[in-house]
């Protein structure tokens, strides 16, 4: 029997009547974000994202030879993604190896990125995407999608465009963007979202928690606005590999 040296505490108020959140942000305000592209030597492409307390590394290998061979697709590239949490990424140590959550997230991230990749340009090969969560602090899947999208570009994979991502959600009657740990844990609804920015089509969308018709529409729109902001940062980071690109929204998106 192993006991963690950690106790989860629920804040008394998640959001004030004036819309002030537990970390002092307003509903449409993002946490600080830093992006760095090209941080690894051996990967074909890589990116590092620091977003609030998240630290996430993404790398891409490919197009390369497929193993095992029976997975080869003759007319296009096989796209694989692996989302993995480091044992030291959580307050309580996480056992290494995939669990049900990480298996699902690996699929969701793959499906978020696949529409952006010109897979038909690389028949018979594989493009491997690895997302390693080194430190988790709510929103790891969307942070991972942003980093992985930059790593794909950094690897020179031909793409329809970048995929950018952000979580939105609901705390009481407020639709908010970029949920923090408390909001993720105790809020009313969580909605991670990603878009292929060429056409602003949604490539990742999940919801956990109820939203009314109008809240849902508001959330989709706030998601799109947040994602546009992320997209601008991605482009800037890709222009200056090895440089840290840093930003956050103060006040309002």
């Amino acid at each position, binding site marked *: 029997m192993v006991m963690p040296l950690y106790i*989860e505490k629920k804040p008394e108020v998640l959001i004030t009547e004036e819309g002030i959140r537990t970390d002092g942000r307003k509903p449409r305000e993002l946490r600080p974000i830093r992006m760095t592209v090209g941080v690894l030597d051996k990967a074909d492409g890589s990116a590092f994202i620091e977003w609030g307390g998240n630290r996430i590394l993404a790398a891409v290998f490919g197009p390369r030879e497929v193993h095992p061979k029976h997975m080869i697709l003759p007319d296009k590239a096989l796209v694989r993604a692996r989302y993995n949490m480091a044992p030291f990424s959580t307050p309580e140590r996480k056992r290494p190896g995939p669990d*049900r959550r990480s*298996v*699902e997230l*690996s*699929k*969701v991230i793959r*499906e978020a990125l*696949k*529409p952006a990749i010109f897979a038909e340009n690389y028949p018979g090969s594989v493009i491997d995407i690895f997302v390693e969560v080194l430190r988790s602090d709510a929103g790891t899947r969307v942070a991972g999608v942003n980093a992985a999208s930059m790593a794909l570009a950094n690897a020179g994979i031909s793409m329809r465009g970048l995929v950018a991502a952000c979580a939105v959600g609901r705390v009481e009657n407020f639709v908010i963007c970029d949920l923090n740990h408390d909001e993720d844990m105790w809020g009313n*609804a969580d*909605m991670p979202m990603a878009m*292929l920015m060429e*056409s*602003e*089509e*949604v*490539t*990742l*969308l*999940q*919801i*956990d*928690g*109820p*939203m*009314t*018709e109008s809240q*849902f*529409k508001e959330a*989709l*729109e706030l998601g*799109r606005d947040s994602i546009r902001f992320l997209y601008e940062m991605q482009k800037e980071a890709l222009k200056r590999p090895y440089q840290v690109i840093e930003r956050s929204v103060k006040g309002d998106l």
Partner: protein
Amino acid sequence: MFGPELITHNLLRDYIRELASQDQRIDGRSLHEFRPIEIKEGTFTKAEGEAWLKLGNTQVLVGVKADVGEPFSDTPNKGVLVSNAELLPLASPAFEPGPPNENSIEVARVVDRAIRSADAIDMSSLVITEGKLVYMIFLDMYVLDYDGNLEDALTMASLIALARAEISEVEVNDEGEMIIKESKWKLRLKDIPVNFTFVKIEDKLLLDPVLEEEQVSDAAITLAIDKEGRVCSIQKKHGMFTMEEIIKAANIARSKWPQITDKIMRVI
């Protein structure tokens, strides 16, 4: 779309897509129409609650079993729900024996998320002794015949099986021993969060796709609607959607909710 991709002839692909462009489908349904839903009568499991449901040719069997155990340390005042789906190899040539894979995990989590996000089960009613002893509910979803749209079939069958479940009452005596009583209690549902799955073919949304429609589709999404008409769970699967398409799918789902719920209420 599962596992080793099933090969669909180009002809069939073109035919389905051509039909869709004319608001038609291979089985004659309209775009936003469910296949016939049938709930088989009889006792097929040793579960506390069960439902064998046919959605067209898709057949699923869901069993709800209850055990007793310790609560999680961070939720001492809540019972435990464990959801598991098995894509049996007898249900499709594309399914292989083995531990849960990406597809069976995703579908189980999509059903589970709908139930939890709508708060359909009163988890605190599962507590026997706070922090010590709670009911553990195992929701086992068995796919027997796979002709598309497992999400909706499994969600309906799960809701029925849960609502039907009759669980032995348990007492803890003065010595702290657990006594299983003859009497039973019913696991009531607080909500009926139905899932609605759409595939997209060009600019058309098709509700409740059959296998071949899944295979030739451009994108797929599953949405759960709760009794207040709120979207309480979404899973976009392959492909992509415009924001307008998603809002449209939510509206269609909302309009279909009473019809499905009515079917469910009649058998529980």
